[in-house]
């Protein structure tokens, strides 16, 4: 449907309601391949719902989402990787087991598990990745034995195992300490530069959104009925290209934050330092 060849993902007339309560309405979007879209909005604005629809964890009530010009499948598939804020990795598997799982599933359709030489081989394949995410020493630890930052590094690495063309991140650093968050930003940006996938990242930290993204999507309600606050859903109210230096933007983090009622100042020092 969409003509342009470098459009990775298109959203057309998207609507989502729960029990006739609209959450999202009239969402229109075209995203170029290799973009890093950060998504912000007040809580309950439907930004996570939007991400879940990109993942096919939920299905639109109306409208369509096109990936490379084709309708999205009805359920999660390996072409879209996901990192959640919590429970992203498998608690019953060690770090290295978490990382080789994807290749085990691919190579052993019935057992879902590799043994002997093949297993050793799979472990060798991930040794470089372990090094990259700084978990070589913790290869045989369980996630519960890792810090929050280490768990999320593992989650990101695991989500990229199937080389997805789209990576979805749902407040991935929300529970992390500010210092750790900076490390994570570096890791994420490095991987993105290297692999060139398209990223959608939901965050509640507006500075993080400005810092990481090439494009900022702000979800908010534009129509209000004072009698029935739930009458209308949210849509994309701001769609800012961030490729240009911050100073040239007419709308900075503070303006966006105050426009949608987000705390804009809180994390400023931490995210702006790098």
């Amino acid at each position, binding site marked *: 449907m969409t003509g342009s060849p470098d459009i990775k993902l298109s959203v057309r007339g998207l609507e989502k309601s729960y029990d006739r309560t609209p959450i999202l309405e009239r969402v229109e979007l075209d995203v170029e391949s290799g973009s890093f879209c950060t998504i912000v909005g007040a809580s309950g604005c439907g930004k996570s719902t939007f991400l879940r629809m990109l*993942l096919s*964890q939920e299905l639109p009530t109306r409208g369509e989402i096109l990936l490379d010009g084709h309708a999205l499948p009805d*359920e*999660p*598939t*390996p072409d*879209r*990787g*996901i990192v*959640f804020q*919590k*429970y*992203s*990795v*498998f*608690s*019953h*598997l060690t770090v290295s087991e978490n990382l080789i*799982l*994807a290749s*085990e*599933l*691919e190579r052993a*359709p*019935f*057992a*879902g*598990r590799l043994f002997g030489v093949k297993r050793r081989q799979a472990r060798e394949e991930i040794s470089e990745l372990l090094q990259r995410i700084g978990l070589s020493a913790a290869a045989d630890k*369980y*996630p*519960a*034995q890792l810090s929050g930052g280490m768990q999320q590094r593992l989650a990101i690495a*695991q*989500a990229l*195992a*199937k080389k*997805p063309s789209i990576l979805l991140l749902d407040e991935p650093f929300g529970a992390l300490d500010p210092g750790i968050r900076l490390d994570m930003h570096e890791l994420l940006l490095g991987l993105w530069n290297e692999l060139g996938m398209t990223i959608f990242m939901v965050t509640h930290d507006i500075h993080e959104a400005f810092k990481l993204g090439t494009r900022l999507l702000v979800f908010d309600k534009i129509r209000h009925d004072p009698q029935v606050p739930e009458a209308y859903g949210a849509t994309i109210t701001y769609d800012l290209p961030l490729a240009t230096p911050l100073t040239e933007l007419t709308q900075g983090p503070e303006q966006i934050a105050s426009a949608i009622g987000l705390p804009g100042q809180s994390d400023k020092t931490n995210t702006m330092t790098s």
Partner: protein
Amino acid sequence: MRIINRKPSRLTALALGLLPFVATIIGYAIASHYRRLDNPADKLLPSLESIGQAFWRMAAIPDRRSGDLLLWVDTFDSLWRLGTGMAVSTLLALSLGIAIGFIPHVRSALAPYLATFSLIPPITILPILFITFGLGEMAKIALIVIGTAPVMIRSTAQAVLDIPREMIIKAETLGASVWQMTVRLVIPQVLPKMITALRMGLVPAWIFLISAEAIASTTGLGYRIFLVRRYLAMDVILPYVVWITLLAFLLDRALLLLSRRSFQWHHLGSDAL
């Protein structure tokens, strides 16, 4: 220091833990002593010595009629019934519990039925069990299974439902099939909870085992207790009760140990039981 902040040392804790047991034994010995002042052959509260003798007789002296060491024959047969029954229940819980917890259509079909079925007091359908399974081992095992499986299936299904949705989605994005998710995600996540369910299930299982053996049997711990009850042989019943309690306790600890050894990841957080 306030009493809530005072912690007993290891030795004190051990002594405190033993105290109620010792007190029970002393209390028993005294009560038994008083009863035997009235009637030296009192059967209700026999002396600790005659309890010991009876236990020795059951455990180490071959029975005059059969030549068997009754305690060990009874223990072996009872544990075999209990083990078989619980193995069947565990397999049912794993297969049905996972199907119900993981596949919405199966859940819709079976969950209401199972919820209803689990409310039937198993003892009330004993005659049906007899006619279906006969009076032999099958009926006893069936009673244990019917008494424990529904609850175990339900708690397994709940354990599957309790797996964070995020993990299942993540597995899907890693290209896992339903079968692969079952063997690599659902079963490993559910097994430790399964062991907890098994430990909880063992409590009613013992009750059903003893009841089943009381009804029609030729051996077993429950059989022996109900048999010698006919002549109020408390000197045999009391050590058997202690023995059953000990076996149940050891089984429970063994399962906990198994869980700690096999599912280290599950016990990393706070460990309640």
